[in-house]
């Protein structure tokens, strides 16, 4: 398995040989920042294209076909269209908060995105409380959505924002509990460590029953966390036209749109990281030949394959299931997912204490 750490260390030594340590680190931060944003945009474009094609397949359609081969340039054209559109200011809106809101949402999304370990040595933010940081960073997005709804001076937006406030804060709990279950199993909160511990089998296999329960809870709660169907109440288009971003136009709307898709990717890639081994290839202890073949596939391919598989799973659910009602969403969370999650945490503790895991 290729370690990107060798490459990054080499770049660091080369830079320090020609300039001071501080300047080198500053330069590296700038480069990484640019690369991160670039990757963010590329992921967003891939996700939007995938969404269109996948939903078309579920709906007996073809999706975009005209622009570029298989319509592949369509999304890039749409991005340019979005960039050229006017950003409309709404009368009687709170201008400062109204303009700030999309940036808070995108900021939270980028910070959470930086936590994802893509391959060995390809981690941007990786420290001993990485899970905690991820949870904290991704939660900031709620503030942006609430601000957007509040400052738009629109009744639809306000209802959408209130819904998302109630929904996202509730489901944060279940996401946290299911990640905590895995933290109990691994006794580390560092994402790179969590991946390394899965070298002899992914946690969904190693942790067996409690891990599978946590995985399912995570998928449901994660889906609700990013406001995707069947939990897309904050922007339920048949009820609230577009929910909290009804009044936004141009690239301000585009930022919400992009953040939503990348958040879906982030949720999926975290699920892939903590349950399905992240970039760690499929290893079966004892089968050395098989493991060697699996190791030949680069880590980032493993990672993206797993992440996009879960994205596909969530898209499948979105396009098939009808939407829940607000009281049903909260009932599902507080009466079912949270108690099950707590019990599951207890079960995991028992499994770990008595060494019942593989």
């Amino acid at each position, binding site marked *: 398995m290729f370690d990107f750490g060798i490459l990054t260390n080499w770049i660091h030594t080369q830079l320090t040989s020609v300039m001071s340590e501080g300047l080198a680190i500053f330069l590296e931060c700038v480069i990484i920042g640019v690369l991160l944003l670039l990757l963010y945009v590329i992921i967003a474009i891939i996700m939007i294209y995938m969404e269109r094609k996948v*939903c078309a397949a*579920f*709906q*007996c*359609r073809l999706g975009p076909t005209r622009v570029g081969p298989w319509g592949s340039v369509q999304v890039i054209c749409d991005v340019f269209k979005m960039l050229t559109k006017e950003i409309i200011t709404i009368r009687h809106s709170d201008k400062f908060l109204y303009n700030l809101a999309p940036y808070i949402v995108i900021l939270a999304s980028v910070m959470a995105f930086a936590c994802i370990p893509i391959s060995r040595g390809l981690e941007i933010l990786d420290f001993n409380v990485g899970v905690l940081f991820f949870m904290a960073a991704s939660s900031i997005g709620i503030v942006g959505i609430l601000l957007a709804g509040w400052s738009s001076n629109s*009744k*639809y937006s306000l*209802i959408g924002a209130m*819904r998302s406030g109630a929904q996202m804060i509730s489901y944060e709990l279940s996401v946290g509990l299911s990640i905590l279950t895995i933290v109990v199993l691994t006794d580390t909160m560092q994402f790179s460590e969590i991946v390394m511990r899965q070298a002899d089998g992914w946690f969904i296999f190693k942790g067996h029953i409690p891990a599978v329960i946590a995985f399912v809870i995570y998928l449901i709660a994660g889906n609700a966390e990013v406001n995707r*169907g*069947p939990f*897309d*109440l904050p922007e*339920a*288009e*048949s*009820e*609230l*036209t577009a929910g909290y971003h009804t009044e936004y136009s141009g690239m301000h709307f585009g930022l919400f749109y992009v953040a939503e898709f990348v958040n879906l990717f982030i949720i999926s890639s975290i699920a892939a990281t903590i349950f399905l081994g992240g970039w760690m290839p499929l290893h079966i202890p004892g089968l050395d030949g098989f493991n060697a073949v699996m190791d030949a596939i680069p880590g980032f391919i493993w990672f993206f394959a797993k992440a996009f598989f879960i994205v596909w799973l969530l898209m499948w659910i979105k*396009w*098939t*299931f*009808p*939407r*829940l*009602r*607000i*009281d*049903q969403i909260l009932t599902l969370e507080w009466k079912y997912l949270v108690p099950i999650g707590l019990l599951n945490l207890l079960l995991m503790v028992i499994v770990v204490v008595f060494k019942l895991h593989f």
Partner: protein
Amino acid sequence: MDNTIDIKDRIAAMEPSAVWSDAGDGMFRVPVSSFRGLAEKLHNEGFDFLRSLTGIDWGEDGLGCVYHLENTATGENIVLGTADPDRENACLPSVHDLWKGANFNEREAYDFFGIKFIGHPDLRRFFLRDDWKGYPLRKDYDMSLNPLNMENEGNEDMAPSYEMTSDGSYILKRHPLFDDQEYVINIGPQHPATHGVLRFRVSLEGETIKKIDVHSGYIHRGIEKLCESCTYPQTLGFTDRLDYLGAMQNRHALCACIEKAMGLEVSERIQYIRTIMDELQRIDSHLLFIACLCQDMGALEVFFLGFRDREKVLDILEQTTGGRLIQTYNTIGGVQADIHPEFVKKTKEFIRYMRPKLKEYDDIFTGNIIARNRLIGTGVLSREDAISFGATGGTGRASGWACDVRKRHPYAMYGKVDFKEITFTEGDCFARYMVRIKEIEQSLNIIEQLIDNIPDGEYQMKVKPVIKLPAGSWYTAVEGSRGEFGVFLESRGDKSPYRLKFRSTGLPLVSCIDTIARDAKIADLIAIGGTLDYVVPDIDR
């Protein structure tokens, strides 16, 4: 209509001042002073279904209304007419407390004729703007009164009502619709879930609905007024543009009504073709119902499944009629063109194709836990309310009211084919959804029984190019895609109708939305609206 002899005696005993007039179907003419008493007596006798309420300008006799009543227990029908000769200040007693469906119908009559209904709680204009001058369906209406208005329409927040005082005069009172502190949100006129330009002003408390005020008329084209200046064959074109998912049935109703007035019997081949076409149209409409309901609820996959299957129906219809949405197929005394040579083969293929597809809808949507949670128990319409509002069609049958015109007053071939009338008792959204699913199956059965036996004969009877009907009034109803579609025709012996009223299938459905959506959530309003299955151009006419 049925049993008139028996009823004549009973009415004479109840109200000696009622006069039987024999022209056309015939009706009882009742003086205004004794109308309210007679209406109450009839309501107590079991005439609980107000089929149609038609405002009418009788010239010298004044402005009045025609009430079509039905006793749902015995199936008896009765027609009452009453008029106030004082044209400037026409007042009729309101019957909204006897039949809830009269509420919107009386507002419509007020809107078009300026008849003041004493005791009506909310006599605002219904289709026209609040600042409209004059009453357009009066025969002495001056067209130049209302030039094109470029001003925005204000919101009338005070509901006027006329109340009788003890000395026999009446006073105008105004009541606020909403309190100052209420959180009122507009759903519509441009909203994805209202299926057209309908507007609900919804008062909310959090997510819970406190009151709904329906605003209609955004697509009002004055079709009934237009018809009065058209010859009979010219009026046919409008019917397709009422409920565009029931184009066949609507036109069938108008043709049947004119044929009844002419005394024309159409050949059996025409009856067969009309019946099959009506049922194909019903399948088309119900498939679109499923598709749109699922889309409203967020299940976007099923939306396309509905459209995929509907496409097959439209292909069959298109081959014969040339139209996909606007069919323009029925004519007075027949149909526009004979069926296409491949029609029988294609229709049979479609029946074979459609039956297994119904299972697919069941698998993907009916059994879905979220769909069931959303639909079961929400928006319950009781049987009494369904009858009182006149909410016919799938909505009424879901509430346990066997209201199918095909069974109540069989027309065309419906008396001779074997099919079940689907009824449920729950009256909730899920029952309304299930009725439609099951009805597709029944429609397929009907078509299957007829398709092989279409007899030879002419597809168009000999009809004079200029049609003049004798004086009189007629009412004909068919089972439209979403309820009883009725045509009330009053003729004065001319080549165009004196008054032509279409009993909208959607208006009663929308009138009950305030009752059943109260204390529900916003999301429930969308499910209720979707399952009530109204089509807005049919409400506005």
